[in-house]
């Protein structure tokens, strides 16, 4: 059993192997399924979360290294009853998602960039995630104005 801080709450996770990628602890042990599995090798970005405010790919981030840190997933970005994050609002305004599977990772990466003070084209240059539906045009139009 390990103790994690996820979305501002302290949670116990029944994991014996601390090398387990954080992705699978979030999804399978804690039931936080908004963070997605796409490639497992840091190519697609679907698993992006914030750890101590930094963008991380949870598919290769071992859970042991996340102990004692602040983990934020898409579920924690705008908890129930709060207003959507400005990135989420912009995403809705521009009707970005199609299937929607890659979008939580895209949004978390964008939030991380903004936390680092990046905007517009600088932010856009960091957006390398894969979207097989091809929502790139709308992502570009959205991020360029953030």
């Amino acid at each position, binding site marked *: 059993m390990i103790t994690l801080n996820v979305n501002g709450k302290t949670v116990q996770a029944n994991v014996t192997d601390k090398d387990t990628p954080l992705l699978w602890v979030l999804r399978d042990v804690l039931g936080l399924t*908004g963070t997605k599995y796409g*490639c497992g090798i840091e190519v697609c970005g679907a698993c992006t979360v914030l750890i101590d405010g930094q963008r991380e790919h949870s598919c290769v981030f071992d859970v042991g290294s996340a102990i004692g840190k602040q983990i934020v997933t898409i579920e924690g970005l705008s908890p129930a009853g709060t207003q959507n994050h400005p990135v989420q609002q912009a995403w809705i305004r521009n009707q970005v998602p199609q299937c929607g599977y890659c979008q939580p990772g895209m949004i978390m990466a964008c939030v991380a960039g903004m936390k680092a003070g990046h905007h517009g084209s600088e932010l856009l240059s960091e*957006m390398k995630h894969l979207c097989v539906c091809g929502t790139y045009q709308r992502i570009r139009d959205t991020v360029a104005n953030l």
Partner: protein
Amino acid sequence: MAHGTLRTPAGEEKKHRIGRRGFIASALGGLSVAFTLPETGRVLGLKAAQGPDPGTLANAYVHIGTDGSITLMFGGAEMGQGIKTGLAQILAEELMVDWEQVTVQQSPVNPTVSYLTGGSTAVSGRYNNLRTAGAAARELLIQAAMTATGDRDRNHYSAAHAVVTYTGPNGGPQSWPYGSLAARAASEAVPADLRLTAPANFRIIGKPVPRVDTPSKVDGSAKFGIDTWFPDMVFAAIRHAPAIGGTLAGTPAKPEGAIAVVPCKASDNRGSVKAGSINAVAVVASNTWLAKKLADKLSVKWNPPPSPASVDSAQIAAQAASLLAGGAALVAEPAAPAGQTPAGYASVIEPQVANALGTPALDATYTLPFLSHATMEVMSCSVRLTWADSSKTLVTRCEIWAPTQAANWVAGTAAALINAGQATPISPSAIEVTTTYLGGGLGRKIEQDYISQAIQVALAVKLPVKLTWMREEDFSHDNYRPTAAVRVQATLGGGGVTAWWLRNVSQSILGQRGWLPPGAVDSQAVEGAVHLPYTMGIRLTEWVPLPAGIPVGFWRSVGSSINTFAVECAIDELAQHAGADPFAFRQNLLSDPRHIAVLQAADQMSLWRLSLPKGHAWGLAMSEWNGTIVCQVAEISQPAAGSLTVHRVACALDCGQAINPDQVAAQMEGGIVHGLNAALWGQVTFTAGKADQKNYSRYRMIRVKEMPQVTVQLVPSGNPPSGIGEAAVPPIAPALANAYSRLRGSRVRSLPFFPGATMGGL
């Protein structure tokens, strides 16, 4: 419960009839109108190939609750195409409610009813029946108001914003919210003259309303198949035989830390388990990662495929080349006259065409690779069984959560597997399939392999289980877009094409599934090569089946993704030979006004092509897909060898009545990306059955900074809606190749442009 058969305006009887089965009793209270969302286009073709269609039973219904709730229940799949929003718009239009008032829910699946989602028919194919159902529900509510007032003059009633208003003499003006009429409406009869709204008066159809699923897709709450989760579930990872066609040589021992190791039998494409053919093992553990790690370490012995050559890309390519030169062809077009077999007909017509061709101006061979679907969401399925007895021998309930394009096939797969192990069959109504959101479908999630495996694991471990494929398994065990070799010969004369011969060599998607009668041409293999809009002197289109062992399937735009490349490159090459402008050359061959209008719209949209910077070039291609005509003009440059920059794509289309123009644009933008990925880099190769590309790192796709500027223009035609999900894919590859020819003076006739491309990390 309402009774009766609808009658509709003269001349539209067939389109707008709801049969007796259109009305069902509902336990929900209020008013229910049930109907069939039909299958058209490719899906209809598939159904025809499989025999009688059970889809005459209702597979959707509209429910109006006494609380005023308006719900459209249907069993299809939302995989990015905006189906929930599009259907809500159509229903709201005729029901005279605001589109936000309609909730679209997944309906329970009846295994005897079809819920196939594919062939770009999700919205367009359901247009007429859904409008009719909405109008029927509206009129039943008005009938209920008539019963309340005693005034049966329809002219005294109107419906708007989910309220019926009466302006007649009986008791003065009155109004009723729909909910207050719903219970009474259920015992009314549908009127004889059911009128549909004239398109000129549409309030909601044709408007770019925001999608109903967007909020849940930006806050992580949208549940995809892979997201199914409950506290007591276990997790399974799958490990297939490394080579396609390989089988398990011996069941490995359960490793420490695993809950179980389950050998899984291969299934055919409808879920029937192939006797004796165990092609995978599942490892079950307390989380997916542990299951995957244990599966990776498992010491497994596999038998090699019985015919390694039939699953080897180099051997398959050599065989295709040989068949292109001398294989026995089936005539796809023109169809053989009665009494002649397609095969025999080839020997009759080929000499005529050869004579007309003489020395052809063009003799070109185009080749295309196997492609993976590579949906962002991998294959995943969750199963929870309930047993009659504590020893868990008799399954009495089976719940399945799956990202599937064929929910009723899932139910059939479950019934077959469960009943194979118990004497008392499970009740069909005890198999409950929930279609989740799909993290991309693209034709892959019509298949039953991952469904069958999850059910086999659940039956073996007798615990609720989620099975998830790792990405490497997904790339290695897809039902791939077939490889193909296409040869075109054509002769010029009088400013046009006097003779044209096209021969396609490719595997048969339908044949591999047993859905193709012997000697028949696979419609999927030749689509995009037949029914061309171009007028030519004499034309022959042939298909030669390629007997390879790679599993092939439906990949967004299927055969058109192959044949449109050959046809539109060939037309462009002919224009070059003739010294003609490619717009003018095509227009000269076209007679259909819709095609001409789309071509001209693309011409006007792309006037930038007349003043391109040095080192830039443009290319054009067009195609018709399931009634939707698309013409694209691409601008490219090549700043460095081994890559292309695609700067912009102008896309004109006629998809008939657009339900939601913003979603039409989204499908064009996304379809162009899908086609670009395939044209530039897409390729799966096999070495003795083993896929050489096992993850995105070797299956390059464009990233956001490489996205061309896409502009979309709808060309109105007054036609009913036609499919938009696949139509943008076929033209982009030939548009690129035609631009490349103008840029470099040499032709790319073999896709992808840049084989072997890799993709680095983030």
